[in-house]
C-alpha cells in the first residue's frame, strides 16, 4: 500500500464521528445507537489491522508513518501541528485499544441493555476511543496532551455515568481532579521542552537530549513521571482508581484496566530518550513503580468489593510496568509486553466480574457471592483463565511478561537491583494470594447470597452471548499472547527500533528467577487457600488486623488527602472568602463609610439658617481679602 499514512487519521476520525453522531443525534438514535458505536469502533480496528499488515510488509527500520493534517497553533516560534506518527509502539497500542475497545463495545451492548441512556454511553465510549487513539498517535507532546486530557474527560463522563448516585458523581470528579494534578506535570513539561528545545515534537526533542543539561532532563523526567502517576494511578496519585469503580463495569475493563491507565507507561516509554539520559529521574520512576506494585497488592488483599479488589490489582500490575519502564532499555519492551498481556487478562477479569454482577443483581460484595461456578460456567472458565494468567501460572501470558520484568529488575544491578527484584517477587506472591482469594470467594465455597433491596434473592444465570463472546476472545488472549510474544523474542524485536533494547545482566540466572517466581506464586495460592478455601467465609467482614483495616481504607492515603487537602482547602477557601469580603472589600467599603460619616458631620453645618450661611460667606470674603493683602505684601 502506497499511501497507508492517509489512513491514520481515519483511526481517530471513526470513533470521533461516532461520538458526535451519538451525542448530538438525540433520542431518534436510541434504538440503533449502540450498534453504530460498536460498528465505528470495529471500523477503527479493521483500519488498524490493515495498517499493521502494511507495517509488517516493510523493513524494521522503515516502519514509521507520518501524517501531517494541518497547522494547529502557529505563534512565533511556537508551532503546534495536528500531525500523527505511527510506529511500532503506537501500533501496539492502537491494536490493543481498538481490539479490546471493540470487544468491550460488543459486551456493553448486552451489559447496558436495560439502561435508558445507553446511546449516550456508547457516545462516551467512542469519545474515549478517539481520545486514546489521539494520545498514542500524536507526533508531538502537545497533541498527546490533548488526547491525555480527552481520555480524562471520557473517564470523567463514564465514571459518573450513573450521575444520580452521589458516590459516582464524586468519584468522577475526584478522578478528574487527581488526573489534573498529573496533567499539570505534563503541561509544565511541555513548557520546559519548548523553552529548552524550541519545539515539543517527539523527533526533535528526543533527538536532542544529548545537547542539553542533565538537570533539565531530570526535571523533565520528574514532570513526566508526575503526569504518568496521575493517569496510571501510581503512588501518590493513586487514590482515584478505587473510587472510579463506581462506573459501569465495561468502563472499568476498558479504561481503568486495559487502556487509559496504561497511558503513563506509554508516556515514559515514549520519552525513553529523556529518561535514559537522566538516571535520577529513572530512580524515581522505579521507586514509584515498586512502591505502587506493593501498595496496590496490599490494598487488593483487603477489599471485599470485587471491582475494587481488581482495581488494586490493576494498580499493582501497572506498578510492574512502570518499574520496568524505569529500568531503561532493558525494561521498555517488557513493560509494553506486560501492558498488552495485562490488557487482555485484566479486561477479561473485569468483564467476568461484570458478568457476575449482572447475574447477582449488581451486588459487588464478594462475601455475598460463593459457589457461582455451577451457575455461570462460561464466566467461570474465562475468569479462571484470566486468574491463572495474572498470577503467572507457567505457560500463560502473565507468566512470560511478569517473569521478564522480575528478571530485569534484578538486572538493574547493585543494591537497587536486589531491592527492586525482591519487591517484584513479593508482589508476585501477594498477587497470587489476593487473586486466589477473589476466585475462591466468588466461585467456590457455599452460597452466601443475600436478598437485595427489594427482598429478592438473586438468580444467577449465564450472561447473553454479546457478553460472553468478548470474554472468550479475551481469555484466548490471556492464554496465548504471552507465549506468542516470547516466541523467539518476537515482541522485543518488533519494538526494538523504537524503544531500543539491551539484554540485562542479572546476578541471578533466568532459571533461578523463574523458579523463584513460580515458588512464591504457589506460596501465595496456598496461603489464600488455607484462609479462604478451607474455612467458611463470614458474610460480615471480621475486624481484621491493623494492616487489613488500613488496607480496606486504601492504606489511609485517602484519609490523609481528606484531612490535609480537602479540609485544609475548605478552611483556606472559607477564610479567603472572609478575607475578600471583610478585608479587600472592607477597605473599600470602610473608606466609603468614613466619607459617609464625615459628610454626615459636615451636613450638620448646613443648618438651613440663612444667617449662618451669611457668616460663612462673610468670613470667606474676609479670608480672601486677607489673602490678597498678604500676596501684595509679599
Amino acid at each position, binding site marked *: 500500500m502506497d499511501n497507508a499514512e492517509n489512513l491514520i487519521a481515519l483511526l481517530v476520525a471513526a470513533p470521533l464521528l461516532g461520538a458526535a453522531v451519538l451525542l448530538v443525534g438525540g433520542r431518534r438514535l436510541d434504538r440503533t445507537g449502540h450498534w453504530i458505536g460498536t460498528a465505528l469502533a470495529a471500523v477503527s480496528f479493521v483500519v488498524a489491522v490493515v495498517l499493521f499488515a502494511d507495517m509488517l510488509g516493510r523493513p524494521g527500520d522503515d516502519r514509521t508513518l507520518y501524517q501531517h493534517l494541518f497547522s494547529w497553533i502557529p505563534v512565533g516560534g511556537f508551532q503546534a501541528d495536528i500531525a500523527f506518527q505511527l510506529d511500532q509502539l503506537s501500533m501496539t497500542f492502537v491494536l490493543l485499544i481498538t481490539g479490546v475497545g471493540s470487544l468491550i463495545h460488543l459486551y456493553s451492548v448486552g451489559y447496558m441493555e436495560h439502561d435508558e441512556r445507553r446511546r449516550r454511553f456508547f457516545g462516551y465510549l467512542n469519545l474515549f476511543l478517539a481520545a486514546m487513539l489521539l494520545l498514542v498517535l500524536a507526533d508531538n507532546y502537545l497533541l498527546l496532551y490533548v488526547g491525555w486530557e480527552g481520555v480524562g474527560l471520557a473517564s470523567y463522563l463514564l465514571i459518573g455515568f450513573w450521575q444520580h448516585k452521589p458516590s459516582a458523581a464524586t468519584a468522577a470528579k475526584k478522578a478528574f481532579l487527581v488526573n489534573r494534578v498529573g496533567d499539570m506535570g505534563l503541561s509544565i513539561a511541555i513548557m520546559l521542552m519548548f523553552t529548552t528545545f524550541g519545539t515539543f515534537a517527539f523527533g526533535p526533542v528526543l533527538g536532542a537530549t544529548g545537547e542539553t543539561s542533565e538537570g533539565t532532563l531530570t526535571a523533565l523526567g520528574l514532570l513526566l513521571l508526575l503526569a504518568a502517576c496521575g493517569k496510571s494511578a501510581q503512588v501518590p496519585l493513586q487514590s482515584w482508581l478505587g473510587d472510579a469503580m463506581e462506573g459501569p463495569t465495561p468502563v472499568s475493563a476498558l479504561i481503568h484496566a486495559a487502556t487509559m491507565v496504561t497511558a503513563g507507561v506509554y508516556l515514559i516509554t515514549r520519552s525513553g530518550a529523556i529518561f535514559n539520559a537522566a538516571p535520577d529521574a529513572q530512580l524515581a520512576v522505579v521507586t514509584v513503580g515498586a512502591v505502587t506494585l506493593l501498595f496496590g497488592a496490599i490494598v487488593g488483599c483487603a477489599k471485599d468489593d470485587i471491582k475494587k479488589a481488581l482495581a488494586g490489582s490493576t494498580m499493582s500490575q501497572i506498578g510492574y510496568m512502570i518499574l520496568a519502564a524505569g529500568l531503561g532499555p532493558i525494561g521498555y519492551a517488557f513493560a509494553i509486553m506486560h501492558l498488552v498481556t495485562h490488557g487482555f487478562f485484566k479486561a477479561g477479569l473485569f468483564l467476568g466480574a461484570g458478568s457476575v454482577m449482572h447475574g447477582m443483581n449488581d451486588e459487588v460484595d464478594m462475601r455475598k457471592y460463593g459457589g457461582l461456578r455451577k451457575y455461570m460456567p462460561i464466566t467461570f472458565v474465562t475468569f479462571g483463565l484470566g486468574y491463572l494468567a495474572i498470577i503467572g501460572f507457567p505457560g500463560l501470558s502473565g507468566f512470560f511478561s511478569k517473569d521478564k520484568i522480575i528478571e530485569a529488575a534484578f538486572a538493574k544491578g547493585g543494591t537497587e537491583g536486589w531491592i527492586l527484584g525482591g519487591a517484584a517477587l513479593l508482589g508476585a506472591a501477594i498477587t497470587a494470594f489476593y487473586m486466589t482469594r477473589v476466585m475462591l470467594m466468588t466461585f467456590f465455597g457455599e452460597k452466601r447470597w443475600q436478598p437485595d433491596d427489594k427482598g429478592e434473592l438473586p438468580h444467577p444465570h449465564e450472561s447473553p452471548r454479546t457478553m460472553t463472546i468478548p470474554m472468550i476472545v479475551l481469555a484466548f488472549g490471556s492464554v496465548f499472547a504471552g507465549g506468542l510474544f516470547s516466541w523467539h523474542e518476537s515482541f522485543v524485536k518488533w519494538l526494538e527500533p523504537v524503544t531500543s533494547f539491551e539484554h540485562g545482566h542479572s546476578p541471578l540466572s533466568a532459571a533461578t528467577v523463574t523458579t523463584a517466581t513460580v515458588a512464591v506464586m504457589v506460596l501465595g495460592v496456598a496461603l489464600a487457600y488455607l484462609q479462604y478455601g478451607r474455612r467458611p467465609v463470614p458474610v460480615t467482614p471480621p475486624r481484621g488486623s491493623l494492616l487489613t483495616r488500613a488496607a480496606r481504607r486504601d492504606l489511609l492515603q485517602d484519609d490523609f488527602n481528606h484531612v490535609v487537602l480537602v479540609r485544609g482547602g475548605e478552611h483556606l477557601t472559607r477564610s479567603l472568602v472572609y478575607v475578600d469580603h471583610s478585608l479587600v472589600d472592607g477597605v473599600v467599603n470602610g473608606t466609603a463609610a468614613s466619607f459617609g460619616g464625615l459628610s454626615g458631620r459636615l451636613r450638620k453645618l448646613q443648618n438651613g*439658617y440663612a444667617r449662618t450661611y451669611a457668616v460663612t460667606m462673610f468670613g470667606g470674603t474676609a479670608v480672601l*481679602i486677607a489673602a490678597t493683602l498678604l500676596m501684595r505684601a509679599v
Partner: protein
Amino acid sequence: MSALAAATSTGEAVQFWVLGTVAVVGALCTILMKKAVHSALCLAATMIILAVFYLANGAYFLGVVQIVVYTGAIMMLFLFVVMLVGVTAADSLKETLKGQRWLAALCGIGFGVLLVAGIGHASLGPGSFIGLGEANAAGNVDGLAALIFTKYVFAFEITGALLITAVVGAMVLTHRERTERARTQRELAEQRVREGKHLPPLPAPGVYARHNAVDIAGLLPDGTPSELTVNKTLRARGQIRDVSREALNDLKALERRSEERLGRDRDALDRDGRRDGQEAQR
C-alpha cells in the same frame, strides 16, 4: 465749587468729623434698635448725612438723588412695609443661633480691620487726590449726562429693563390670584336661606363697660361665651379672650370686699367667702 480739589478745607474737616460721628451712631442704632421703625428712622438719618457727604465730594446730582430716592422713596417703602407687618412688633435681640454672635463679631471686626488695613496699605496720601475740578467744569449734571448717554448708554438702558422687571416682579409676588369666581351677595344670602342654619345677622361680640373688643366673645344668658359672636379668623388663631368666668369672679370679689367692709355675718361669710376666694384664685 469747582475749586473742590485734593486738599480739603477746614470747614469740610469739621463737617466730616461731626456728621461722620452722627452717621456712625445712626448706623449702630439701625442695627441695635429693637423696633424696626426706629431702625428705619436711624437709617434715614444716616442716609441724609451721606447725601451731605456726596455734596461735599462734588457729587451734587447724586446728593440730591440720594435724598429723593433713598430717604424719600426707599425709606418710605420700608416704613410702609413695617406698617404692614406690624409697628408694635419688637424684636427680641436675644441670639438663638449658637455662636452666631461671636462669629459675627469676629468676622465683622476682622473684616473691618482688614479693610482699614487695606486702605491704609494703599498709601493714598492727600496728594493723590486729583479733585473733580476739571470733570465738573461743565457742571456735574452735564458731566454725568454726557457719560450716561455715551459711554454707559447700554448699561443705562438695561437699568430701565431692570426697573420694569422689578415692578412686575413685585406685583407678581404680592398679587393673590382668585382661583374661582367671587360669590355675589345674593348668592351668599340664598345659600344661607337654603341651609337654614343662621338666617339673621351674627350677634355682635361682647361689649362691656371696660372692653369694646372684637376678641371677646359675647355671653349667652347662662353666662357661657357664644362662638358665633367672634370672628372666624380670631377663633382659628386662638386669640379669643374668655371673660365669662372673669366677670363672675370679679362680681364675687366685689361682693366680698363690700361684706368685709360692712363686717356682716363674719363667720358664715368666712366659710363662703374663703371657699369663693379659693375658687376665684383658681
